[in-house]
């Protein structure tokens, strides 16, 4: 059978692999140093304030958590939707999903005001809080995907893989719905109060997660001297373009419906026209670089090397994705809440004014530390477990049926 052709082997120890590990280790240490510094002095040393209470760390954390669920795409397509060409990359897909989630959660936890009370967060739940539900969704996701990886790697009947894979697929939809609802349920802020947040976040997860997956797959193969065929790149690139288009579609719906509601006209004008940095990030980076450009890159007539295109498209999707999360998280807070409709409000506590936010180096360090943790975890897993096939050349990848 086609399946038997795929040989999974641990990564060989190569010089470039070590170099990458050392680089990631440095970023991880940087992240830990940023955490220690912030924890010692309090959040006064960050750019966050009493107006913008969630900043760059949350942008990174949410991006990683959303991508985690999307990184499972390849595995789901293989075992839930039965597409054989995705089977050889299904294991990596599961490993990456777990690693990204761990990286995102680490950033989230280390940015708490009292990270030493993590045990409180794990033992006391307020079930009317979507945040508390998310804690359960996250831990559950790790468990379900771990089980999924286990059945993929052990010699159990394929029916098992399909069953656990379906559970993981449903769980990831719930997880991203939960993450989107963190914002969707904030009725107080006009930028968030929308049911569209949940499906928007699901589309974002499909797109960002696949982009990260493509880059990690390409990097690991490169670093270990293994080869990927054109068809594989083409397949993943085509999928990425569809997902990027879906994100654009939901973004359009998000803003069009908000424009339609009179009470959201203010925030819409802010994001789409008058918001300065947020407007630039929205149109140029999120829509242009992260949406239209990668779609064009994949669909327009090619200029040669087909591996470079999906890789470049993935980079663009990630850059646009970070901008999108930034606009949602920070832009939504920068715009003032209206306590007194019909009045112009002002106060020493910045009522009625757009709040400034300048991310600090410590926040960037913490965020990149989380990314490094996630990538390092994938690398270590691929080094000690048989998750990567030795070869993804077109002849070795099973066809559809």
């Amino acid at each position, binding site marked *: 059978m086609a399946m038997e052709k795929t040989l999974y082997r641990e990564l060989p120890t190569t010089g470039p692999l070590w170099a990458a590990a050392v680089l990631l280790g440095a970023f991880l240490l940087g992240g830990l140093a940023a*955490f*220690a510094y912030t*924890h*010692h*002095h*309090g959040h006064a040393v960050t750019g966050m304030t009493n107006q913008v209470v969630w900043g760059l760390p949350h942008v990174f954390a949410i991006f990683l958590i959303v991508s985690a669920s999307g990184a499972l795409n390849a595995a789901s397509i293989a075992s839930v939707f039965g597409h054989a060409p995705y089977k050889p990359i299904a294991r990596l897909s599961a490993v990456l999903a777990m690693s990204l989630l761990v990286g995102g959660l680490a950033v989230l936890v280390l940015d708490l005001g009292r990270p*030493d009370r993590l045990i409180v967060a794990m033992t006391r739940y307020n079930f009317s809080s979507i945040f508390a539900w998310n804690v359960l969704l996250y831990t559950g996701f790790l468990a379900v995907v771990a089980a999924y990886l286990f059945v993929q790697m052990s010699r159990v009947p394929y029916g098992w893989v399909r069953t656990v894979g379906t559970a993981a697929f449903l769980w990831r939809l719930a997880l991203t719905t939960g993450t989107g609802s963190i914002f969707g349920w904030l009725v107080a802020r006009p930028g968030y109060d929308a049911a569209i947040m949940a499906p928007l976040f699901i589309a974002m997860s499909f797109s960002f997660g696949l982009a990260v997956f493509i880059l990690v797959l390409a990097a690991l193969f490169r670093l270990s001297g293994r080869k990927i065929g054109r068809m594989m790149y083409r397949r993943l690139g085509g999928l990425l373009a569809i997902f990027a288009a879906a994100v654009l579609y939901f973004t359009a719906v998000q803003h069009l419906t908000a424009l339609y509601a009179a009470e959201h006209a203010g925030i819409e004008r802010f994001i789409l026209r008058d918001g300065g940095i947020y407007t630039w990030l929205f149109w140029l980076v999120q829509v242009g670089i992260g949406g239209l450009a990668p779609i064009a890159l994949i669909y327009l007539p090619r200029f040669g090397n087909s591996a470079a295109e999906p890789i470049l498209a993935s980079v663009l999707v990630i850059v646009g994705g970070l901008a999108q999360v930034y606009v949602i998280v920070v832009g939504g807070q920068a715009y003032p809440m209206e306590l007194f409709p019909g009045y112009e409000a002002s106060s020493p506590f910045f009522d009625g004014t757009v709040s400034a936010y300048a991310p600090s180096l410590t926040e960037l360090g913490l965020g990149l530390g989380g990314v490094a943790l996630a990538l390092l975890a994938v690398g270590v897993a691929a080094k000690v477990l048989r998750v990567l096939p030795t070869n993804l050349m077109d002849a070795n990848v099973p066809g559809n049926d």
Partner: protein
Amino acid sequence: MRLVILITGLLLTALSPAWGQDAAWAPAVPKASGEPHPEGNAYMRRWHMSMMKHDRDLTMYDGERGVNASIGECFECHAVKDEAGQPVTVADERHFCRSCHDYAAVKVDCFDCHRSTPEGFEEPPHQASLGRGILPTLPYSAQMAQVLEYLRASPTVTAEARE
């Protein structure tokens, strides 16, 4: 420095098993003013944390303010004075709460928020400049075992006595 003491302590315990028996571990607990606790010192030593936690929830949730173990009141009687006759804050190792905790490697976060001196005294800012440590508390150090031994050996302190 602390590490040296810890290692010396470990060595001592290892070398002389009889050490803890006659020369029982005795913390240099600073003297208090005012009426002693009706529960007795031994009981206080063993249960002060649970008492405060219990009374904390009474105050927090039920607005019960005439509680027995109010952390705000401890220092009305347990204020240790420095050379200048001023109460010391918890940043000073002579502070009442640190007299045992340091030795037992217990670290409490209470004074991130609660005052560690009597009301009315202007605390110097150096406590804040200490910032917060990131090392987790070591709940059971070598001395901890001795402290617990000491606590168990104290008369009248048993779990039943608490009920």
